[in-house]
């Protein structure tokens, strides 16, 4: 009896969840409109942040040149994830696909970031800045504990 109910509930739940997945998936159209928009969203996590944001071509990501370091903003589902890069966290910087800066992060929970930048000048400037940050970090050990 219980097994039958368990199976029935899970089948119904599975079907409904799949249906809702299709329904909800098509609604996520948020994009960063401007540098100010990116900074405003970044400040929701880091209220004291001061700096200038460079928004990725697809509006899904931004790099922030902060007064005290480098910030990263990324669309994650319906939320915006923010990160201030800490020394030792940036384990690699590369250009992929000709126009995308790919960051490798020493964090199992946020292992990579892809920032598409069509503007070659902005891309070069950011590559230099990120490269310098990674080099300056040296062998520093990043703190990546999360809690709530």
């Amino acid at each position, binding site marked *: 009896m*219980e097994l039958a*109910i*368990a199976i029935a*509930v*899970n089948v*119904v*739940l599975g079907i*409904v*969840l799949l249906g*809702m*997945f*299709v*329904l*909800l*998936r098509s609604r*996520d159209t948020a994009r960063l409109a401007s540098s100010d928009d990116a900074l405003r969203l970044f400040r*929701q*996590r880091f*209220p*004291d942040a001061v700096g200038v944001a460079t928004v990725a071509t697809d509006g899904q990501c931004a790099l922030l040149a902060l007064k005290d370091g480098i910030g990263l903003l*990324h669309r*994650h*589902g*319906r*939320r915006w*994830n*923010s*990160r201030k890069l800490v020394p030792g966290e940036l384990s690699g910087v590369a250009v992929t696909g000709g126009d995308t800066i790919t960051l490798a992060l*020493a*964090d*199992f*929970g*946020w*292992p990579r*970031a892809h920032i598409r930048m069509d503007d070659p000048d902005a891309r070069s400037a950011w590559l230099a800045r990120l490269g310098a940050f990674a080099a300056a970090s040296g062998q520093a*050990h990043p*703190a*990546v*504990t*999360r*809690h*709530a």
Partner: protein
Amino acid sequence: MPDAALLRAVTVAQLLLLLLIPIEMLLASRSRIRAEYDARDTLANVGVSVGSIFFWGTLSWILLGVVALAYQHRRWDVPFVWWTFLIAFVAEDLRYYWWHRISHRSRWFWASHVVHHSSQHFNLSTNLRQSWTSQFSGLILMNVPLAYLGFSPALTGLAFSLNLLYQFWIHTEAVGRLPRWFEWLLNTPSHHRVHHASNARYLDANYAGVFMIWDRAFGSFVPEQDEEPARYGLVRDLDTFNPLRIALHEYVGIARDQLQPRLSWAERLGYLFGPPGWRPDGLGHTTAALRAADSARRERQTVERAASAA
């Protein structure tokens, strides 16, 4: 009391409660209630749930073995009657409070429990996002005292199942504040929103399972403030929907910390059992540090506002 039948009834009730998830989802999609679902987040919850059910199913013998062993050596024989059930329910809720509190305050245990807090959404499907490693974090030993006193596994099992059953409905934004007496005595969606928030002032608060009195008695109660909506998730954002990464990321963080060269044993233990965010240099983002920084920022803002008004 027919304990087996009762346990089965609770199990069936738990399964039926799952049907509330699509109902909340549907009402949310039509803006009928305050709730937000993200397709990938919900799918990740289901994925994590599959893993947690698998590990629970394959490893629950550890918990059952520990409890059975303690019960074999029990001091008394506590009968399964209504009033012993009430005692077991309250005692089990107290055990849950301390289990939960330790799970948040020490990193080794947090590495297991963090899974449940990793979603940036707060809805009924958040219930599905449960730990994969609860059987070997060590906290199952907290089940020993009641068994040793003579409360049968069936009695405590029923009490714990009902406790979890109660906690299902509090994972929602759809319910606002309830009558004051209710909010004072029992855990509610409002209290649990605070618990799942990553705002500095809400960190490490409201550990209760059913009775809010434990938080009030042990100083961990924080009320929900209208001017500060909860921001769900972790202090440091998790940028993945991959169930494996969600379930294991903190263990990888611990391993990376432990692999640093030239650490003393005290530092290794600090990284393992210290509060989440602990660092040997004292500069880690622990709850205490985050709260201090948040208070300083609020004071600064107050001074700036006063200065600009003058």
